[in-house]
């Protein structure tokens, strides 16, 4: 966990009173919507189809039990009893009243939660690996650096009025769980030959209308130089970025138009000016942040406790353990992923009751800590292996033990036309239908790792471009039509998917996906060959042939 200091607490509280005043002036008519819009967006408040939507930041995906309980309270007191975890380590409430928002913000501020940097053309919530600090083989806890960037960028005037929103993600593991290659800046912690900590820096990733995979512009930037280097990137962006055209304003377009070589040269030149300035971080700063992250007092525990050995006889438990429990850096402990993808449910939603109960379970079994990942699932980061059977029973009762993590029903989906005012088509009902079609866990396991990502419009909040199977909702003559791509991925080998054929209607999507999966099962060389690898080996054609032959 991270403990905020006095500066942060004051900042968050000032924000609440400022916003209270702004809302009051809005409701009295002193502020017009045009004047108010930018202010509400700075506090995470959007206007959606049915109501205002409130987006709350969960910095680098780390929550305490107390904070999760407070989110449950917000859901219950100000909303309709549930919240939606997003792909960028935020939670959204869909039915909040403007008049009550200042109270909701005040309630959150009491536990150190806020909504800054969750919307608007600024530096957004810096995201990280949900297994940060506990993943085996990690170089170091990437949240230390996320926090450094958060402190530096929050309310920084140069980053508050960018040409467009700006997203940074950081990972410290070989396997990238933070999707850094689809961020404006992706940072990978690495060590150089001297054993010093630094970053490989990637820029220009992003989805939306014009998707790009980020490219490496520098293989090693020393940790102490990371702020000046990021600032140099932002200055080049601020200078050249297209403020005239919203569709061309993201840094990915600039990197593409200038070319990666010219872009890196510009950054390098800018960097030389500011590198030895006050932006250079001295070790004390990092140590100070490091000391504010507390880690549990782990016990010395056996690798294979009796409780676990005994529970192995229960096939339901085993199915869940094999699916949702992952290795921890400390012997005797595990990381447990909690699927928010129950059969027939909206991906990423949790009820207030589930949040409360999970907060209790985290206290009992995970040192009071919960994590949020970009796949719209939660995790308990420090569970003693001996507690796994008891935890599983409790999760199962709450409907939170669906053993489908990383399987075909672990779907990422944006809110789509059920909530979103920008949507062309619905996403959630498509996801719900697919989870029903593939509800049989044996079937899902037979298929193996397969990520389906769904967006309700080209903005790509549901990451459809990088789904192993991507589904994009568009509109054609007033009807919802879905374009299907295959072969995308969001990890260290990130790639954009390719279209398999003409769009299909709402009612046909699940059938088409079944056909794609059947084609894969027939085409794969052996059971271990994952869907994504079969697509890579064979290309799109054989899938296209099978799926469209009879249509």
């Amino acid at each position, binding site marked *: 966990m991270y403990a905020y200091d006095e500066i942060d607490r004051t900042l968050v509280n000032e924000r609440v009173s400022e916003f209270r005043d702004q809302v009051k002036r*809005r*409701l*009295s*008519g002193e502020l*017009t*919507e045009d004047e108010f819009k930018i202010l509400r967006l700075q506090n995470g408040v959007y*206007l*959606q*189809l*049915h*109501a*205002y939507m409130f987006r709350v930041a969960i910095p680098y995906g780390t929550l305490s039990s107390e904070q999760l309980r407070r989110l449950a309270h917000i859901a219950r007191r100000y909303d*309709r009893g*549930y919240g939606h975890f997003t792909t960028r380590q935020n939670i959204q409430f*869909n*039915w*909040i*009243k*403007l*008049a009550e928002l200042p109270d909701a913000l005040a309630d959150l501020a009491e536990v150190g939660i806020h909504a800054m940097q969750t919307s608007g053309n600024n530096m957004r919530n810096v995201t990280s690996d949900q297994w940060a600090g506990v993943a085996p083989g990690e170089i170091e806890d990437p949240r230390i650096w996320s926090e450094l960037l958060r402190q530096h960028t929050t309310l920084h005037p140069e980053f508050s009025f960018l040409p467009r929103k700006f997203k940074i993600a950081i990972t410290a593991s070989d396997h990238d769980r933070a999707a850094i290659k689809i961020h404006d800046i992706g940072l990978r912690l690495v060590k150089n030959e001297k054993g010093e900590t630094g970053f490989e820096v990637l820029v220009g990733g992003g989805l939306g209308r014009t998707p790009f995979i980020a490219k490496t512009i520098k293989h090693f930037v020393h940790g102490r130089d990371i702020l000046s280097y990021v600032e140099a990137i932002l200055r080049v962006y601020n200078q050249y970025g297209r403020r005239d055209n919203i569709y061309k304003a993201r840094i990915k377009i600039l990197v593409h138009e200038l070319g990666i070589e010219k872009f890196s040269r510009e950054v390098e030149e800018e960097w030389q000016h500011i590198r030895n300035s006050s932006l250079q971080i001295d070790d004390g700063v990092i140590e100070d942040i490091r000391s504010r992250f507390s880690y549990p007092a782990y016990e010395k525990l056996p690798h294979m406790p009796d409780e676990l050995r005994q529970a192995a006889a229960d096939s339901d438990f085993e199915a869940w353990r094999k699916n949702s429990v992952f290795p921890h850096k400390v012997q005797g402990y595990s990381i447990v992923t909690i699927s928010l993808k129950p059969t*027939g*449910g*909206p991906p990423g*939603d949790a*009820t207030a009751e589930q949040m409360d109960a999970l907060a209790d379970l985290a206290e009992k079994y995970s040192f009071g800590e919960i994590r949020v990942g970009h796949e719209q699932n939660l995790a308990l980061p420090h569970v003693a292996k001996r507690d796994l059977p008891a935890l599983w029973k409790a999760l199962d009762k709450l409907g939170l033990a669906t053993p489908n993590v990383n399987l075909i029903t672990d779907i990422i989906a944006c809110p789509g*036309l*059920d*909530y979103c*005012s*920008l*949507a*062309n*088509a*619905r996403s*959630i*009902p498509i996801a*719900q239908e697919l989870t029903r079609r593939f509800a049989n866990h044996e079937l899902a396991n037979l298929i193996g790792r397969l990520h389906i990502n769904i967006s309700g*419009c080209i903005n790509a909040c549901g990451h459809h471009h990088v789904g192993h199977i991507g589904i994009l909702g568009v*509109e054609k003559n*007033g009807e*919802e039509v879905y374009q299907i791509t295959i072969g995308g991925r969001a990890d260290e080998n990130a790639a954009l998917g390719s279209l398999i054929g003409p769009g299909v209607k709402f009612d046909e999507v699940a059938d088409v996906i079944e056909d794609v999966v059947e084609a894969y099962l027939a085409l794969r060389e052996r059971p271990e060959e994952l869907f994504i690898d079969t697509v890579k080996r064979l290309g799109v054609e054989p899938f296209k042939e099978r799926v469209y032959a009879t249509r």
Partner: protein
Amino acid sequence: MTSPLEQKKIKIAGPSIVTANRTWDGIVVYRTAAKGWSADLSEAAIVRNSDEAKALLAESTADDVGAVGAYIAPVQVGEDGKILPGNLREQIRRTGVTIGSQAQV
């Protein structure tokens, strides 16, 4: 359902209404003939040509304290005068999400 939020030219093809979200709580509302807002679609003022639509929208937008994000949306008017949403987006705004019980009104 191309988002109507960026309506540039106002051209309507059939009976239409003006809809928005109420400022203080965000709920879906419709502009009435009495120059107010109602949560009930049956009370919406119907316009049938572009000039009427323009006028209704201008008058609605001016009431920025009452509701925000006003735009013109199509409706169907039955023989009995019953007003129904003209597309899926407006259908969802009127009757709620289509994803099952959890989020129902």
